[in-house]
Structures are given as C-alpha cells and as structure tokens.
C-alpha cells in the first residue's frame, strides 16, 4: 500500500459501544495490495476548454488545480471558464445546431453517437483509472460500473436517434436547440453520458460543465468526441465552478437546462430561469428509505444495505441512507451489518481490493463530519467500521447510527457520505409513513420474500425508483429520476427522451 495506515477515524469516540462486538479477523483478513497501474494513462498538465471542436485557452485566463482526493496530489490544471467563455461555447453550440446537427438525418446522428460508445469501450480502462484518481472511487466500481454504463448509455441512445417518431406515437416531436448541462462529481463520466447521449440523440447540441472537483474524464470524453469527428460545436465542454454553471444556466440562448446536483442548487436554478421559457430537468438529492421486513432473506438484505449506502462512499443521490428495519429483526441485522462491515477494505482507489475509496473533497468530508457530529450530539449511537485510515487524503470509514428518531438531522438531511441511519417500524403502513416522510423522493428499497408485499410497498412509496430485493441498479433502458424535491424529468428509457424533445 502506498499509504501508511495509522490513524483511525473513530478514535475520538470509541467505534464500538454496543453490546454486540464486531467480528475481528485479526491478521486473517490481511491482503496483498493489487494496485491498478496508471502508467499507461496520460493526463495533460493543463487543459483548456473544448469549444467549437477546438481546445482553447480560457478568456478568463484562469486555471484551477484538480487533485487526487486519496493523496491530495495535483493531477492537472484545468481552465476556469467565465461568462464570456460560456458565451463562446453556447454560440458554438448554436451554430452547430443550425448548420449541422438539426439538419442531419437521425441515422447519421446515430452513427456519431455509436462511435462515442465504441471509443469509450476501447479506452475504458484508462478512463476508469482517471475516474478513480480524480474522484476517489474504487477502481472496481469505476471499472465495472461507471465505465460499462457510460458506454451503454451512448450505445442505447445512439439507436434512438432515427427512431424518435416511434417513441411518442401519434404526437409531433422536435428537438429543443442548445442544451446547457451541469453535472456532479459523484459519477463524473457516467453523468456526462447520461446528459450528452440523450441530448445528441434527440437532435440537440450541448454545452456541458463538469463538476469542479472531477473535470478530467469529461475532458477525456471531449478528446473522444474530437477523435470521433463530430461536427465542431455539437459538444462543448467548459470547466469551472459554480459561477461557470450559473452563467450557463441563465444564458439567454440556452433552450434547455439539465442539472444533476444538490436540491438547494437545483432550486436556485429553477428560480433563476423562471419566466424564460427554458426547459428544465432536475435530478437532485435524496434520502432513500431501504426497508427490510422480518421475512426478508436477511443475509442478502445485509449485502443490499451495504451496497445501498457504502457504494461509492455513499456519494450517491439515491443511496439507501435511511435503513428502516422491522423491529423484530433490528438486533440481528445490526449484528450482521457490523460483521459485514468488518470485511470492508478502505484504501487506495486504485487498489483492486478496495471496497471504500476516498471522500471526493475536503469540503465534502467536512460536511460528513458535521452531520455525524450532529448525530452524536442528538444522542444517536454511532458505529464506524474499524478501517485503518490512510494519513493523506480525505477518508471517512463506513458508519451507521442506531437510536435515531425521524426528526434527527441524520435521518432528514442528505449526508452524501458513507453514513447510514437505522430506524425501526412495526407494520408495513408505518414503514410507508416513515419512508414517505421526507421532502425527497428519488428512490427506495424493499426487502421481503413476499411478492404481494413488494408490490404493496412499491405502489405506496413516493419515489421514482423502487428496488425490490436489490438496490443501486442502473441501466440506460430504465428511467431514473425523482418525485417531489428530488427533481423532475427522467433520464434513461423511452421516458427519458421527453426531457430533450418538444412533444406536441
């Protein structure tokens, strides 16, 4: 291992206070490091903006560093686009829309998008490594989930480009124009794929702003798009922070704004573009209930709980961050959960053994610590997995709280980290009541062996995605998106096309 593991995150507060002691594997769980080599990966020292098919120096003249959150090393300098740069990008996108993309046959648009899908597959390992270096997620997740899904999204939507008339029988459709897209740092390349692929398939051109802390794979995607010889300006990538995103969202020549990120920023965008006739889709925060009934296959459920909340360090908008367990199985589930967590390996994102990678940024780590401290102050009981914590980088061990109430901050606010809040219920209706008692409505999970109960719950839960006896599954054919303050519009599937088309 590259890092010395000395400090423990939970040292200040003893990690294990409950009556049941977690499994201790001792040396039996030691393993040899198996790092994925980054030596075939090339990251430029400095990246400009990809506008109109060319790499340009930002008019702002400013660059900012993007770092590896597991080592705090600078990976590259990235352009900080200002409003003028955004304007250049929107102009390029408008010109590309008028000159090429809106006039091209769907079948030809499709072939360009297929090219992108293929190139992502060809460069998958390189992209996965950069994703893990820039964002901190374990290589086995970027390699086995993010990359295959990103390629699949382009492949799936490519096929729609010449079949849109079938998607909305008997109704007239039209493309919207220029789409301004702002994406988060938790699945950087995958979110770029979710945004760009349907926009292009539906005949729109794109200006995409990747997240400030994870711009690299979007820039590598820009290279792929360049190599795929898309007409200049069809896809433009502008890097920067919140101001860059704001300039893009409110730009008068942007016809469609698509945003994935926090609910508070989503609300600001919705307010900012009120009265402008821009189309908007929002994929915002969540506080998903993962509901486990006593008749569930408990061991499978425990694995589902772990996947639900510790996948991608909990940086998942649809994470199963509220575990609702039927009272009679609370203790056994807590015990099994601790045992399972004792096997989780936290460490270098590039190590193929790693289950839990680095927290994406210093700011996010501070947010997680703040909410965990609030949980402790409110008298909830904390358990953190006994993972050694590397000295450099941003880390937080898998953690859960018991003894929380519905009104606890950790039961209401999105933590966006590897922190689970465990609550109990006695009847299915109580579970529904508690699950729906949130302003969010992105996802939910139900674990039971009884089919009728799954459908009863699935019908009553106010959430856009319901996972029955599974969790955190994604697919380009499967519409994804929220109810209530988790946003509106869908991504994926036939339904997702509606976000990028005018349907009359």
């Amino acid at each position, binding site marked *: 291992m590259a890092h010395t593991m000395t400090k423990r995150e939970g040292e200040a507060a003893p990690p294990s206070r409950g009556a049941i002691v977690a499994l201790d594997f001792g040396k039996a769980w030691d393993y040899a490091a198996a790092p994925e080599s980054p030596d075939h990966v090339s990251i430029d020292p400095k990246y400009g903006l990809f506008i109109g098919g060319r790499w340009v120096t930002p008019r702002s003249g400013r660059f900012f560093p993007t770092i590896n959150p597991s080592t705090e090393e600078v990976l590259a300098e990235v352009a900080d686009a200002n409003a003028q740069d955004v304007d250049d990008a929107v102009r390029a996108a408008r010109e590309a829309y008028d000159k090429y993309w809106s006039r091209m046959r769907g079948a030809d648009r499709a072939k360009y998008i297929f090219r992108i899908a293929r190139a992502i597959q060809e460069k998958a390992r390189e992209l996965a490594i950069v994703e893990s270096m820039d964002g901190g997620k374990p290589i086995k997740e970027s390699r086995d989930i993010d990359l295959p899904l990103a390629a*699949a999204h382009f492949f799936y939507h490519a096929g729609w480009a010449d079949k849109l008339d079938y998607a909305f*029988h*008997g*109704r007239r459709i039209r493309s919207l124009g220029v789409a301004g897209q702002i994406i988060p740092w938790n699945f950087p390349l995958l979110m770029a794929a979710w945004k760009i692929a349907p926009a292009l398939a539906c005949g729109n051109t794109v200006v995409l702003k990747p997240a400030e802390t994870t711009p690299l794979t979007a820039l590598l995607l820009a290279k792929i798009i360049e190599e795929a010889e898309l007409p200049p300006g069809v896809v433009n990538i502008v890097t920067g922070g919140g101001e860059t995103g704001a300039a893009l969202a409110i730009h008068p020549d942007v016809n469609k704004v698509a945003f994935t990120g926090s*609910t508070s920023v*989503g*609300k*600001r965008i*919705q*307010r900012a573009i*009120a*009265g402008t006739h821009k189309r908007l889709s*929002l994929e*915002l925060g969540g506080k998903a209930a993962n509901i486990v009934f006593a008749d569930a296959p408990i061991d499978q459920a425990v694995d589902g709980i772990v996947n639900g909340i510790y996948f991608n360090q909990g940086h998942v908008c649809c994470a199963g961050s509220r575990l609702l367990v039927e009272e009679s199985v609370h203790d056994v589930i807590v015990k099994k959960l601790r045992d399972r967590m004792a096997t989780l390996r936290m460490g270098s994102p590039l190590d193929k053994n790693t289950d839990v990678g680095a927290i994406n940024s210093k700011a996010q780590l501070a947010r997680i610590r703040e909410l965990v401290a609030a949980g402790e102050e409110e008298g909830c009981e904390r358990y953190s997995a006994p993972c050694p914590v590397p000295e450099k980088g941003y880390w937080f061990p898998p953690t859960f709280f018991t003894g929380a109430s519905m009104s606890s901050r950790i039961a209401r606010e999105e933590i966006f980290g590897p922190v689970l809040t465990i609550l109990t219920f006695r009847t299915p209706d109580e579970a529904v009541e508690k699950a729906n008692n949130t*302003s969010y409505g992105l996802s939910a999970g139900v674990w039971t062996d009884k089919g009728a109960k*799954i459908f009863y719950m*699935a019908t009553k839960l106010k*959430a*856009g*995605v*319901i*996972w*029955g*006896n*599974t969790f955190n*599954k994604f*697919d380009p*054919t*499967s*519409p*994804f*998106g929220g*109810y*209530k*303050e*988790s*946003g*509106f519009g*869908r991504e994926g*599937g*036939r*339904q997702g096309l509606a976000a990028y088309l005018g*349907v*009359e």
Partner: protein
Amino acid sequence: MENKEASRKAPRGFERDETSESALGTSGASGASGVEVEHTSSGDILLMKPYDSANVDARVRVNKAYKMFIGGAFVRSESGRYFQVEGAPSEEDLGADPATVNVPRGSRKDVRDAVLAARSALVSWERRTAYNRGQILYRLAEVMESRRPELTQSLVRGGETPAEAASQVNVSIDRVVFYAGFADKFFALLASSNPVAGPHFNFSVPEPMGTIGVIAPDRPALLGLVSTILPIITGGNTCVALAGERDPRTSIVWSECLATSDIPGGVVNILTGHANELAVHFAKHREVAGIDAWMVDPNLRRAVESEGADSVKRVTTRVPMDAEAWSNERKAQGLGWIERFLETKTIWHPVGV
C-alpha cells in the same frame, strides 16, 4: 362586463350581499318589467326601480347565492370578500340572476383550505381503479348534458353569443367523454417494460403527482376549466382551480355539475377570485405538486414559476390560447395533457430461483 370590486372596508352604502339584494326585491321574471339600472360615477350599479307596481301578480324571483366549491361543499370566502359580475345582460334574459351577482373573492386561506381538501381526497382518488375513474368521469358528462341549458345560459350572461355558448358546452361535454374513455388507457401508452442488461425484471409505470393547481384562462370560461382540469383528474390527481375572472359564475354553475356527479368531494375544488392575488399562493404552497397556469401577464407567470422553485414544483405557465384553439381536438386535448402531471415510477426486481 367589468367586475366591480368592493372591499370589506367599502362604505356601508356600497356594500352588497344577498340579503340587501333580496330586500330590494327585484321585480318579476318578465323582460317588460326588468329592473332599470344606473351606473354611478363611482362605478357601482344602483337599483333604481325595485318593484313594478303595474305587475303585482308577477312571481318574485329567488336569486341564487354563488359560492366557491371546496371539499364538495359550496362556501363563501372565509375573508368575507366578494366581487361583482354582471348578471343578466339583457332584459330578455329570463334566468334567475339580478343585474349583478356577487361572487366570492377567494383569499390565501381559501387556497389553503382547498388544497387541504384536495390532499385529503387524493389517497382514495388515486387508488381507485382506472375503470372506476372512467365511469365517474362519464357520469360527469351525463350530468353536464342534462344541465346543458343552464351552462349555456350562464355563458351567454358571461358574454358569449348563444351560438358560441352552445358550441362551447357541446365541446366541453365531449371533452369530458374523451377523458372518461382515456382513464384506463393512458397507462398502457406511457408504461414500459425495460430490457435491462441483467437478471432483473424492470418496469416503469405512470403515477399521479398529487394535488395540482390550475389558474384557468379567462376565456372560454367553461371549456378552459374542463380542458385543464379533466386531464389532471383523469391521471388520478386532485385539483384546486382558480376560475377565470371574466365569467367566474359559469365555474360555479359547473361546480354544481361536479357536486351532483359521482366525483368525490375534494377531487375538484373551484375558487373564484383574482389571479394576480392568488396565483403566487398556489405556487408557494408546499402541498401543491404542480401548477398549470394560463395567464396573460408575463410578470405574473414569472412570479409563479419563481415561487414554485422553493418546493421544486412542476410548473407550466402559458399564455392563454384563443377560443378557437380550445375547441381544437389536436391542440387542446390528448395524451400529453394527462402525461404532464404524471410521475414515472420504475420498479426493479431480480429474476431467479
């Protein structure tokens, strides 16, 4: 056709309610003995000749008090406020209205009461079978058909020509029938089974969003309401609608159709009042999931969209179409009108033994 405003603080002599109106006792039903009116400089209408002594045998008409429709009941505004609209436009009008009628001027509290009623009605309405909802909506068409003369007459008083009014009522009834027959079909057109790349059964279904607010267009008074409300409730949502200000009385006459159909109380709630006062209260209410607002004023449209952002509301605001477009089946009805206020829920389950 101007609406005469009178606040609670108006001088006593200018205040009107149904008691003072009936005490003045407008005379008989025949046009020949119609009431003369005089428009004062303040804009108020004073009844000059309350009683026609030449026609003492004429029956004294019973005037109707027009009320809003909330939770299945007819209520005045909790604020006690009202505004006036012209009643019978001509001496030939044989209906039951005096020259002016008082219509409740709904308040923010009325909006809240109506939303509460709509939210309470939501659970049972969204859980009804699609077939049952279709039957209930068809029953509304039956009731409207039997009240066709009353609806037509109300529209005429609201300023439509008799021919326009009759046509609007016809189209409105047909539109209700259109949605009645759609209740058990849109689901199959919008749902999907999704071929995910893995051992999972995955499907997406449309679900109602919840309680939807409607700011109805001023014209056409009946068809505008029917065209906006019917697709919302067909999808399983409940609704709070603010009727257009130009002819709010027709919305109340239509509410009487709703009340005598099988639509459960609270599924449709109709308020009367001023959009520039109430629209933002629809937008600010956190229990309102979506808004369909038809308003001319761009500032008001922007305000509604902006205030709706605080609860990530699904807001569409639009400039009202012309009357002809509302009658057009391609422009003013269809699957898209239902889909606009539906959510998509996607359900995954593993396949295996």
